């Protein structure tokens, strides 16, 4: 034993600001390109999902109640922390099968994307809300409002940018999220949880689950306390079924792909219109 024994990482879930193992006790092996075992990641159960949704619900109102400026700074902080952990992420992405170059590009996109969404938080109202010129003595204002708890199907091969491309706009928009990562993204998701935990994102606002994508997403769309699901990374063969299952609770769904434009972040917002009389005599 001349060489130092490396301390291997345990890849856990991120729920309510903590890093639990799956309550089921199950893990899932992740292998590198040469099929060597790299790690076991936690394999989230239905109860883990329930706990994550509960944590998200509990945290959401306070998160939405923060000023948009404050949410913007916290999302920006994600980019800052990410920048400082590039090497770790690059290594994990390479284990997941990316080339160094692709991994670096993925991180560039993730960091720059986080900055992009950070700056959106306090622009939404002016871009998508406003005063409506109704034909009567009323002030009529449409505001954009958060949807609540959003479930995010992160793409298997999206790496860090694939996850943050959904997480950041949803957070900037004032929602709490349950991000579900499967496949090779599972490896980075645990580390991403550490980034979120150290970026001033309040406990419960962002939750990350790894496990069987299709099963987790099914439980997610069936959960009556989930307001919206982004099915970007849903397995193609389960997509129609998941869409159909949103009917039961009329859960909103989208597949934004994290594309950087107003339409994406508005998928994480709704519109509320308030009327008030505006005349005294």
């Amino acid at each position, binding site marked *: 034993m001349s060489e130092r024994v490396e301390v291997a990482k345990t890849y856990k879930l991120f729920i309510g600001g903590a890093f639990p193992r799956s309550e089921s006790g199950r893990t899932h092996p992740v292998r590198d390109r040469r099929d060597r075992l790299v790690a076991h990641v936690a394999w989230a159960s239905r109860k883990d999902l329930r706990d994550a949704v509960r944590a998200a619900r509990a945290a959401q109102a306070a998160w939405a109640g923060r000023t948009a400026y404050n949410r913007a700074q916290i999302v920006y902080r994600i980019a800052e922390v990410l920048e400082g952990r590039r090497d770790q992420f690059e290594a994990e992405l390479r284990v997941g099968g990316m080339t160094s170059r692709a991994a670096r590009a993925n991180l560039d996109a993730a960091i720059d994307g986080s900055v992009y969404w950070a700056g959106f938080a306090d622009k939404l109202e002016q*871009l998508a809300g406003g005063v409506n010129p109704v034909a009567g003595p009323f002030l009529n204002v449409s505001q954009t409002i958060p949807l609540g708890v959003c479930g995010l199907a992160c793409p298997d091969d999206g790496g860090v940018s694939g996850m943050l491309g959904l997480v950041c706009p949803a957070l900037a928009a004032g929602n709490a999220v349950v991000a579900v990562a499967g496949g090779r993204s599972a490896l980075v998701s645990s580390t991403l949880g550490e980034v979120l935990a150290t970026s001033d994102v309040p406990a419960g606002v962002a939750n990350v689950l790894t496990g069987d994508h299709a099963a987790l997403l099914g439980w997610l769309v069936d959960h009556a306390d989930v307001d919206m699901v982004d099915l970007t990374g849903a397995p193609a063969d389960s997509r*129609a079924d998941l*869409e159909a299952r949103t009917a039961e609770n009329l859960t909103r769904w989208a597949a934004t792909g994290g*594309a950087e434009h107003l339409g994406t972040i508005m998928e994480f917002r709704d519109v509320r219109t308030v*009327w008030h009389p505006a005349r005294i005599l």
Partner: protein
Amino acid sequence: MATTPSRDVAARLGEAFADYAPSAEGRDIVTIRPEYGLVIGGAERPAADGATITTIDPSTGDALARVAEAGAADVDAAVAAARRAYDGAWGAASPRDRAKLLFRLARLLQDRAREFAVLETLDGGKPIREARDVDVPLAAQHLFYHAGWADKLEYAVPGMRARALGVVGQIIPWNFPLLMAAWKLAPALACGNTVVLKPAETSPLTALLLAELVDEAGFPPGVVNVVTGAGATGAALVDHPGVAKIAFTGSTAVGKGIRRALAGRGVRLTLELGGKGAHIVFDDAAIDQAIEGIVDGIFFNQGHVCCAGSRLLVQETVAGDVMERLRARMELLRVGDPLDKNTDVGAINSHSQLVRIREFVDGAVEEGCAVHQPSRGVPDAGFFYPPTLVTDVGGSERIAREEVFGPVLTVQSFRTEREAVDRANSTRYGLSAGVWTEKGARILWMADNLHAGVVWANTFNRFDAASPFGGVRESGFGREGGRHGLEAYLDLTPVRA
């Protein structure tokens, strides 16, 4: 002057005055044909299988006309006609010309406003005052408002390029037949789509008359097609592979079915569904105006309003006062002939809806609620139901949770803002809410915390073409009206991509 007047001449005159003599709007302005066909590709035709439905005047039960009932083959023909128009004359029309045609349609509707109002009242049972003062003017406003968007769609969403979707299927309810038709058609056409419109089976006539105006205005054939029929017709439209988008207004149950049917097909969908609107009155409210808001909120259009304020929540400190005033106000409501210009509450739209309302109220009594109805009766003939107040409500009763869609108001009290919000939000729905208070900060806090797409503060049941309307939760998704409403009818792609 403080003496109680004896029942002298003046007193008798007062009584004679206050018992308003009948003042019926003339129905001769409307010519109802015995039969109506489907409007497909600019021509009227019977259903392929010859099926018809009969539409009646719910205030008498008398038949008004037989209307074609479209089957799958007819829907297919309508979608094909819409597609031809989309690929042809309508797709080629300049945005400016689309605008001008819509402006003209709005004007034609204004010209014939009285005719539309009378027909709406005859076919649907709503009071002529409402058809005249609300439905028809708002329908015209929707057409006029959206007309101006047709050549300005590059401004619809910042940074997004806007294109039409194609053929749009629109399924509308029976409570505001003309208004819903205009509400749906206007943005769809302004955005360059063509339409297959499915009116409700109990009130199809004004949509068919509107289709005549569309033709008169000079829209190319096939831009607007009308397939009358019941649920099966709507289902055929939803199932048709040629539609790019479905817009549905109706019940939550049917809306969920449509969502399932469209899963995985890439068809756009907006749903305007049911509601169980909370109407919250604080003790500092302008009480008399709040009473008017409550009355309008639940008795407007016989309560056949998805955003009706059907759950009254009153702060305990004024609950007694509010209830006393509300009961007195309800005594004044004139229920009867919808064509009478002084009628406040008209006929229930259909016999089946009347039965449903009765079942709800009977069930409430069985569950221990108390029911109050005004002393004036309702007409024997036709479908009428009196304005109804349900008290001693706990919140778990069926009548407090499900949408009655009738002139029935449940009442509960609350003590604090938090309690009011929690009670208001304790529902699957999230369409509308009302708040009455003279305190500005309370309005803003309540609006922020209520789960509702529309919040009326110190007013209720206000609608406008420029104002986005739509719900959260199980009241549906998507907005109609205003700039936001355009998004449902546009294919938006980022300009810089």
